[in-house]
Structures are given as C-alpha cells and as structure tokens.
C-alpha cells in the first residue's frame, strides 16, 4: 500500500504547446526534488533552495537526462496548498512532462487523486469557507471523470490481463489463508516452490505491461477519433492514408474489418487516437455483429467522428443510422471515392448532417490536407475537448504496475529467505490492491469469498 503523503501531478492542461508543469506538494517535496534535480550552478544545494525563487537545471531519472527545466520552490504555508510545494516547468513537450512526473513518482511521491490539490488547499485553510461546496462538487465531478476516463482509455486487452493477474494472485492468497486458518486440513509443504514459479510468471507479465505503458500502448492517449461508415465505404483506406501504412486489410469485400483497429498519430502536433471500425450494417454474421456493436460503443465515447460516405452510391439505411449517431457529436464527413462519378453532392451532405463535408479520395490521396486543417481548426478553436486527465491517469496506472511488480519481487525474496507463508500473503495482497486501482476495483470481501468458494475447510 502506498501511504506516501507527498503528492504530484501534471498541473497544466496538456496541449500541443509543449510546456507543462509538474507540481509536487507535501512534506517531502523538496527531498524528492533533490533526488532528481541538478541545478546548472553547481554550488546550489537543492535542500537549501530559497522559497519563491526560480532555479534553472536538469531533471534526471537515475543516470538518464530527461529535460532541462525551471524549478520554483514555495515553502509552506506560502503556496496554493499551504504545504511545501515544488513546481517543475518542463520544456520538452508532452512526452517529457510525463517522464518527469514518472521520475517524481519513482522517488517517493504518490499520484494525486483528482481534485486533491484543491482539497488540501481547503483543508489547510487556503480557500475561503464559502467555496467549500464548490470544492466538494469539484472532487465529485473530477473523480467521476477520472474513473470513467481511466477505464475508458484502458485497452480491453490490458484490463483483461490485469483481471487475470488479479484472479491468480487472489487464488494464491486464498490458498495460503485457508491453510493458516485450517492448518490440520490444508498443508503448505512444498508450496513455496510452486508459488515461486507462479510469482515469477506473474512478475514477467506485469513487467511487460510496464513496458507497454512506457511505449504508450496501454492507454489510448489523445483525441479519440472514430471512423464510421457503412461497409466498404472505404474506412480502412482512410485510416491507412492517415497513418501512412497498410495496417488495415483493404479488400473489395464488404465487412472485411470485423474488429476495431486502433492507431495513434500526430497531426500538426495534435495527438490523435484513431479507431477504424467494422462497417455499420444490419448483419446476421455473429462475428461481424460483435464488430458492429463495438463500433457503436466506440462512437458513443468518441471525441471526434470521421464519417466516411461512398459518394458513388446512393445513401442507404445504414448511412441514415450513422447520421443519427453523429448528430450531437463533433464529426467531419468524408465524401469518399471522389475519383468515381459522385452521386451525392457536398452541399446535400452538409444540409443533411450540418457538419463540415470534405470531398475525399483515399485512392488518389485527395482531401487529406483539407481534413488535417479541419481537425486542427476544431482543436485550436477549443471545440474539441482534449482529455488531459489521461496523462495523469496513465502515470497513475504505471505507478500502480511498478508497485505490483515490487510487491511480487518481495514475495520472491521472502520465498528465497525461507520466510513463513503468512508473509507471502501480505505482499501478494499489496500487489492485488495495486492492480485493482488500475481497473478501478476495490478489495472489499474478495478474499473471504475466494477462500470459501475454492477451498473446503472448517470442521
């Protein structure tokens, strides 16, 4: 369990501007800074930084240089939270801000809960009493949002892996605990060896997840962009054109993309997370049906929808259905196959959808510039909400994975040192809890239920 009382988070909205501030608040703020910050002037001692002065230097994670930064230290109570506060002003762009935050977390801070800086500011008397209700509502809405977005952004495969890991950990704990509770019935002889194998396998899986978190493959960061269209409208071609590679299989056969493909790309400095979906149509094919269902779900959550229309054919029932879906959404209509003889006109589509319509040819790579411009305009006009909570969410998730990995290593050490089994159980439980925070599940009565359902015990 992480009980650290110094918290950290990215304090600025994560935009393409590339400047971000990492804020640390709590007793150990300065100490944590001293572990990662090297001032340019060699004679500066970080622990003796003067309050409210800015210092220039570099942030390191171990031996690796991460970024050149400006650091501002504010001694308590003269800060927003009325606690010792450090702000690290990073220059290296979105990715680097995240790395700096990770270094801070690795060195003793805990990721701030949603609204926690404000909560602390209030509890320490920094915010006027009359604002208490606003603070409470803020905590409420922020948490709701954080929880939703963290689950929403977590890729399905990742959450499945974590659930499976948790199940296996819980099984081991339950086994140990039932043996402790009913020692004459359930023996633990030779169990350490068995557990060692299981734990090593789990450790590897957790470490793989940490790696994929590093590569940004765990959460989908960026504007969630979903490509919708009836089968064979050319959705996959549009995706391929956008990301510049043949990722999605393109065929003449309607219904080829049966699942959802996901790609990440930067467009004029804007981070896009693009999903190609199964074509939307009424279908009896079960696999395809699932694909269609998924496409609809994704559209529901999307920040931006690219609606691909086959301009060489008349609008169908399926097109009408999609138009319904995009009504209240940010959407851009791509009149695809402009190289063929168009039947549907740009004006007609604009009238029908009320959205911006771009004449497009995936085949001849026409309309791409116009599309980029349209997305960029939407973003910088502030019409596209950028979900900056995702970055802190992903940092939190990685932090939890690292904790889980450490706990599993501890189990291994305990086995090596011939500690008794009840100690394995303590560290396994820590790993179980840490993983639970990623998928938003608390512990509650899991263990007792597992014990009774899996092991026959008691006289």
């Amino acid at each position, binding site marked *: 369990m992480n009980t650290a009382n110094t918290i950290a988070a990215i304090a600025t909205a994560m935009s393409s501007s590339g400047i971000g501030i990492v804020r640390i608040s709590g007793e150990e703020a300065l100490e944590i800074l001293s572990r990662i910050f090297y001032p340019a002037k060699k004679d500066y001692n970080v622990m003796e930084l003067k309050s409210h002065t800015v210092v220039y230097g570099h942030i390191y994670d171990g031996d690796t240089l991460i970024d050149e930064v400006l650091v501002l230290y504010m001694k308590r109570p003269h800060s927003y939270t009325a606690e010792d506060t450090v702000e690290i002003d990073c220059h290296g762009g979105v990715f680097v801000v995240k790395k700096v935050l990770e270094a801070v977390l690795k060195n003793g801070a805990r990721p701030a809960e949603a609204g926690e800086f404000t909560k602390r500011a209030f509890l320490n008397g920094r915010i006027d009493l009359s604002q208490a209700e606003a603070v409470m509502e803020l905590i409420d809405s922020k948490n709701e949002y954080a929880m939703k977005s963290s689950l929403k952004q977590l890729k399905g495969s990742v959450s499945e892996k974590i659930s499976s890991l948790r199940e296996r950990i819980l099984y081991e704990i339950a086994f140990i605990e039932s043996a402790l509770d009913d020692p004459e019935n359930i023996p633990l002889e030779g169990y350490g060896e068995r557990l060692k194998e299981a734990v090593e396998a789990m450790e590897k899986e957790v470490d793989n997840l940490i790696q994929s978190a590093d590569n940004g493959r765990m959460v989908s960061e960026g504007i969630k962009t979903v490509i919708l269209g009836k089968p064979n409208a050319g959705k996959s071609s549009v995706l391929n054109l956008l990301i510049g590679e043949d990722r999605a299989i393109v065929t003449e056969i309607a219904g080829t993309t049966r699942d959802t493909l996901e790609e990440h790309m930067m467009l004029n400095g804007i981070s896009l997370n693009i999903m190609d979906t199964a074509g939307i149509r009424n279908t009896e094919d079960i696999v395809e049906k699932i694909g269609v269902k998924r496409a609809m779900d994704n559209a529901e959550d999307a920040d931006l929808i690219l609606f691909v229309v086959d301009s060489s054919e008349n609008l169908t029932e399926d097109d009408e259905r999609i138009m319904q879906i995009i009504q209240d959404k940010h959407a851009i209509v791509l009149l695809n196959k402009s190289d063929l003889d168009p039947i549907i006109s740009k004006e007609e589509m604009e009238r029908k959808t009320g959205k911006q319509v771009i004449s497009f040819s995936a085949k001849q790579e026409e309309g791409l510039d116009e599309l980029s411009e349209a997305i960029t305009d939407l973003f910088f006009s502030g019409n596209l909400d950028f979900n900056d909570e995702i970055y802190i969410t992903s940092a939190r998730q990685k932090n939890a994975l690292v904790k889980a990995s450490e706990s599993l290593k501890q189990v291994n050490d305990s086995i090596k040192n011939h500690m008794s089994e009840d100690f394995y159980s303590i560290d396994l439980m820590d790993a179980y809890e840490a993983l639970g925070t990623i998928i938003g599940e608390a512990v509650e009565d899991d263990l007792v239920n597992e014990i*009774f359902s899996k092991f026959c015990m008691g006289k």
Partner: protein
Amino acid sequence: MSGKNNVLKEEYDVIVIGAGHAGCEAALAAARLGLETIMFTVSVDSIALMPCNPNIGGSSKGHLVRELDALGGEMGVNIDKTFIQSKMLNRSKGPAVHSLRAQADKQEYTRQMRITLENTDHLTIRQAEVSELIVENRVLKGVKTVSGAEYYGKAAVLATGVYLRARCIYGNVSNPTGPNGLQAATHLTDSLIKNGIKMYRFKTGTPARVDKRSIDFSKMEEQFGDEKIIPFSFMTDPKSIQREQVSCWLTYTNEETHKIIRDNLDRSPLFSGFIEGTGPRYCPSIEDKVVKFPDKNRHQVFIEPEGEYTNEMYLGGMSSSLPEDVQYDMYRTVPGLEKVNIVRNAYAIEYDCIDARQLYPTLEFREIEGLYSGGQFNGSSGYEEAAAQGLMAGINAARKVKGLEGIVLDRSQAYIGVLIDDLVTKESHEPYRMMTSRAEYRLLLRQDNADLRLTEIGNKIGLVGEEQYKSVLKKKEEIEKEIYRLEHTTVGGTEKVQAFLEKQNSSLLKNGITMAELIKRPELSYEILKEIDPGRPVLSDAVKEQVDINLKYEGYIKRQRSQVRQFKKLEGKKLPSDMDYYDIKGLRKEAMQKLDQLKPVNIGQASRISGVSPADISVLLVYLEQMREIRRS
C-alpha cells in the same frame, strides 16, 4: 415489589439476558465494575454451555481469547482450569498466525464458570425467560419475564445466543428447542421487532456425539497435545498447568460415505428447503462439503473427547442434518467407526439474530439507548467471538450506567476491534467467524503480545489489577532495553564468531555488524545467538520471544506501523450522529443512503462501508472542515 398487581418488581443497574459465553463475560464485567447485575438464563444448569465443538481457541479465535484475557475477561482463566489437551497451531509459520487451542472438559468448563459467577459480588443469577423489553422514548428501562415479573435497569445486554425461536432439525424432525433439547426463548423476538429491531434468521449445525467404547481407534491417527503447555491467560503460571493430556484422533470419510450422502440428499432438510436460515460457509455440514467439492474424495474427521470422565466423543468435521438412519449409515462407513453407537444425533439449528449494523461500535443499539448486545445474537458464531463481544458489551453497559464514555477498540488495536467493526459496518449474510486474514494489521496483533497491547486498557477500565498491570509495564521495559542493547552491540569477525557462523550455515562477516542485524538473518535467531553474545542479561522466555520477533520482522512491522498511522488519522475524525448526509453536496446518492443508514462514528468507519468511495470520503473531510470553521466563527 408492588402490592397492587402482585407482580414481582426489582431494580438493578445492568440486566444481562443469556448466560452463554457472551452473557457470562458481560455479567462478570458489569458486576466486577461494581454494578448491581442480574443475569437471566432459561436454565442455570446450562451456564457457559459448549453445545458444539469441545474446544476453545484455534486460528484467530485463540487471539480473541488472549485479548479478552488481557482486558480482564474470564474465558482464558476458565479454559486454563478445565483443558484436557492443548496445542499451539501454526507453530511452523510466522508469529502472527500462531494460535492456541485447547480441548475442554465441557462439564468442567461449565461447572468452573458457574463457581466463578456464583462467587462474584453484585451478581444475581435468575432462571427465567425474558419475554419483553421495557422501552420508553427510545430509552431502555427494563425487561419483563414470561411470568410478568418486571426488572428495571439502567442498561441491558442481549446475549440470547441461538435460543431465540430456536428450532433443531434433522431429517423431517423439527424440535422447537435450543441446543441439547434446552428450552427455546419464543417470546422476545416479537418485542424486539416491535421496538424496531431488524432481525435475521441464521442456522448452524453440530455433528453427532458417539460412544467411545464403540470406536476402533487402531484405524485412526492419534493426535497429541503439545509437550510444553502454554496457558491462555497471562495470569496463569505455565508451571501450574502442565499435565497429562487426552488425545484426539483423526480419520477420514471415503467415497462410500459420500455416496450415501448423495443418495439421500432428497431427505436432507438443507437441500429440500425445509431450513430457511443461512448457514456459515466455514463450517459446512458434511452434505455441503460433498456437494460443493465433488472432486474431494475424502474429508477429515476429528474424534475429540467431550470431557475427561465421559465416553462421549465429538465427530469434528461431520456436522449434518440428515435423518437419523442416514447418519448411522454414513458414520459407519468411516474407518474406525464401523460399529459406532450414537449418543446424540447430529442436527442443524435455526435461530433469530440481528443485523448488527443497527449497533454503534460500543455494541449499543443506535435506536434504543442503554440496550446493548453481544454474541451469536449479533450474527457471529463461535464461543470466542461471543465472549469477546459479551465482554465489550458488559464493559460499555457498565460505563453507560456510570456516565462514562464507551470503550471501542479499533482495528489496529485488537482482533476484538476487527470483529466488532466488521459486525457493525459490513453486511453479513452468514454467521461471522473471525479469521486472521480479516485483520489487516495482523503482524502487530499477535497472540503473543495481547498483554502488551491491552493490559493498560483493561487496567483503565478497572478489570485488571495493579499488580498485573505493573508486571506488564516491567515486561515492556525489559523488551525495549534488550532491543536497544542488541542494536548497539557490535559483533566483529573474530575467529570465534566466524566459526559460529560457519556452523550455522550463515555467511561470514566482512565488517562489524550489530547483534540486531544478525538476528534478522533467516537462519539465526535470538536464541541461537546466545553463544556469541556474552553480555546477555537473564530474561524470561516471554521477553526473549518479543525481542526476537520485533527484531526479526522489523521491516514488516515498521510497514504496518506506518499504515496504522494513516489509519488512525481517519479514525480520529469523528462524525456526529445527527449529520444530515442528504444535505452534503458532492456525495453520491448511494453513499448518502449508506451513510444515513449506518451513521458511522468516524471517517474511518465510513470508509469501510461498501458503496462509499474514496471520493465520498474526500467530500466528507471537506464538509467536516467547513463545519468546524463555521463553529469557530
């Protein structure tokens, strides 16, 4: 006494309803604290009865008894007087899960407890069935018995165990009695419901008792007690209780047993729906085990003596509510029981109990001032769980009468705290049993340090004498001094030391190291190191044990201590009982309902209610701060 109606009227300070393990502790605590106390039982002969298993303690239950003893309860003392076998369980495992268990001579246990009760000042024992509560304006005033007699008191403790509307069942036989054919209490439930108390119906069961002369022990494994007997009570001198011990025996069921059970499931009241109550999952009947774990081809059966001077033996592991003839058939398939004669049938018992979330952590009803409850009536199971609650209910009832604040142990102080907090906070659909895995700080809540944790509290309450308290203080000091010495004693790599380490298969020293560091090595211990520790003072085994554990597991202990500090912060933030949770903006709907329903006493308890999220807790913290500010200005 009133002349007008010819109704008996008496007045006491504390009224205890029930004389089982909870009732006895409650009555003793109240009387010992100087309050005039009356204890009701349906039968004086069944005081402190053990109607199920013939032992006290066991995993985590042993912890409860130790804690109860340190606080000034009676169970530990009584079992030390009456045990016939004793065993420390989990000895090969970590110190946190060592657990003491003793086989009791049941009759002797009852007899000794009765002697203690009868010789306690201020305590009156009365055989009568309490049928009604007298409550005025939500304040308890007294109780009525079936004869119409009225007993007035300033506080009462309900400890009715499994007797309320009890029903004993096997096959299609259903007897409206408590355990062992004792009279059930049939009237009180109505009065409780009338007073707004929410009732549950639970069930439990017990195996048959058989005649020792009909058992072939040669087909079973003998189970001995420990060579060196460790007492339950911190006040019992270990030397005074070393004795010859009686053995238990182990045998197993087999496929034939299971077949008979499966073939007769349609005659089991458990599966036919005849039994409505919810049973405990941790002590399932043999039919439950066979149905739920079909892959297990055998289950353990422990044959345990019911006493030293009786031939009755208890068939641990084979509780059942199957019909009599099936019981015979299935028991007789077990090796060693081929010719067994049953003395008492196995049976299931159904009874009324409460949803304990109606109680404050002091075990007082939120809606009826002065009314407390403890034991199986609260939805727990087990003698030890009952006794622990009875003690706390008795203490708090007494303190109520004296106008003192209630005593609540928290989850970081004692298993008793975990037990009561779970009962009053979490929804439970089965009889609750203590388990070490329920204690999140179990490394700190060991059975070996219950005296160090709780004697001071027992002394403050007034149930532990000065002498006992001082001896614990002395023990504490000796432990601290010795730990300090070991942390400041450096060992160098002398020839003698290196030779010693080599002999112990421990790596040799390159630099100096403290004795405390050496103890941490898995292959070494305080005891082993005495060879190279000439400056060691003479200390008792109990002190040595504490020194060893505290140094050896220092890392884990420190970790749990720091977790406890976090925990205490939230426990310290009190929530007033008149909070209007529906008025707090930012709380989620579900949280509002749950908080309003359970009225937690502090933020810590609120955080453990299912359906209350961390965000809700943040909101509560902000709200409390706001209230504090308003009051200040």
